[in-house]
């Protein structure tokens, strides 16, 4: 926490409205260059379609309903995998952070499993589950488990012991101590875990859907590759980027709401 506190405050003195827009200047500029390069024939359409073509492909897929259906499928996989894996990771993080017995019992095992790259399990997972939903859920859940577990554990272990002592001498029960001191103290670290996990969630899903799926964004991209529909391939990649950004923004909003007390989030 002291490290976070020592960082410069993210809020600058610039006008807030300009602050909101300025982050989009570079992406828009890059898209403009891209469009220009395609229109002038600098980049052949076989290599990279123009942004306008990608938009057109998006429009067509939107009308046919295919795009929305695939996004929904992917989003559902991502979020349920995240909830399952994150929930279990959080529970283990709490248990091992609060109980030495639980930590002795499970931490070493979990650390060993952590060293297996979860994507290496794909062949095994396909053998176990086939290519249906449970395979994807399993992989996503396994992927998000570790960042959330590790950061929850770390957050709980690094809560200021002076505050815990204070809570004890002021007569807080175990439950109160957890609710009023330990959990809020661990929250900044838990959020770091959540943001790591969101990145891993998309990564895992993309790989899983690309290799073994019969629906979803990754499947859409692989189908398009089969038929040389490069605009749809690029579209899928862009949608992944957008969804990732969306998930990150959502976690930032949540952070702002729950960490309003933190010096880094205070508005002056």
């Amino acid at each position: 926490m002291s490290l976070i506190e020592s960082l410069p405050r993210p809020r600058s003195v610039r006008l807030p409205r300009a602050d909101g827009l300025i982050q989009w200047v570079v992406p828009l500029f890059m898209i403009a260059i891209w469009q220009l390069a395609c229109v002038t024939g600098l980049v052949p359409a076989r290599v990279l379609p123009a942004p306008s073509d990608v938009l057109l492909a998006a429009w067509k897929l939107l009308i046919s309903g295919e795009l929305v259906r695939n996004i929904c499928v992917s989003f559902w996989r991502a979020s349920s995998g995240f909830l399952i894996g994150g929930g279990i990771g959080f529970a283990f993080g709490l248990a091992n952070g609060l109980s030495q017995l639980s930590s002795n019992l499970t931490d070493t095992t979990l650390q060993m499993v952590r060293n297996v790259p979860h994507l290496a399990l794909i062949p095994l997972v396909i053998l176990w589950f086939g290519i249906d939903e449970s395979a994807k859920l399993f992989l996503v859940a396994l992927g998000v488990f570790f960042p959330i577990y590790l950061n929850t554990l770390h957050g709980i272990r690094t809560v200021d012991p002076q505050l815990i002592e204070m809570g004890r001498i002021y007569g807080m029960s175990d439950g109160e101590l957890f609710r009023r001191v330990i959990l809020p103290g661990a929250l900044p670290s838990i959020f770091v875990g959540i943001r790591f996990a969101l990145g891993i969630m998309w990564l895992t899903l993309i790989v899983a859907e690309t290799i073994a799926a019969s629906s979803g964004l990754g499947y859409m991209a692989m189908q398009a590759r089969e038929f040389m529909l490069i605009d749809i391939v690029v579209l899928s990649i862009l949608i992944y980027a957008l969804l990732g950004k969306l998930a990150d923004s959502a976690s930032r909003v949540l952070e702002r709401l729950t960490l309003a007390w933190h010096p880094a989030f205070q508005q002056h």
Partner: protein
Amino acid sequence: MLATLQLLAEPVDRTDVAEETPLPHRADAGRGRSLPLIIRGLRKSFGDHEVLRGIDVHVPAGQFVAIVGRSGCGKSTLLRLIAGLEKIDAGSISFGEETRLEDVRVMFQEPRLLPWARVLSNVEVGLGRSRNLPDADARAEAALSEVGLADKRNQWPAVLSGGQKQRVALARALVSNPRILAFDEPLGALDALTRISMQRLLERVWRDEGFTAILVTHDVSEAVALADRVLVIEDGRISQDIEVDVPRPRQRGSADFAALEGSILRHLLGADERGDS
């Protein structure tokens, strides 16, 4: 009563005003409820190192006692034992009667405020088990007024200055009307001017609330300015027990103080020289 109402109507948040103005007593203020402190043959070791080697002292109810000594002399350990934060190896500490957790409060060198709770909720922590009663807010607000921070009730601790944080910590310690209040170098981390105004605040609060005060400090002049009695600890024993017979309100920088402070300092430094030779 009229005077009380007028005082309540006045803003009391400014430091200078808050120190000097005797605030209206809270309805259930602890005057007359203070407890004596009786310590007999107290010993404490950490591993092979014996920190306290037989402390015997009787502090009458309502007295303001300062404990001074060089760093590592065991004064903070003594305070932690009094507060029940460490286990006693041998001997006993008693308060003359059964006490509840809320009767003995400690204020530390660090404010130890919950950064994620607003100032008022931080003060409510001090109510212990009665923090869920309907009058919790009112009691916490009264304690905040007592330290002159009523207008900061909805702030986050992060925006307060060091002195203000320490005043919130004082309000948290006071809110349960403790009968013994132990201070572990509560002003050690503050700048010189804030220290002096906090010393006045501590003295006023002690006068108003009438608890038994035990102040651990390495600052001899602070001890002499505030306490009725100064205990000097050396090598885990009380080596000097000095009455500070200066009437209150005390004038800082008077000759009486200088003489007393000088003699205690000479004693402490003398021990050092004896130790060296």
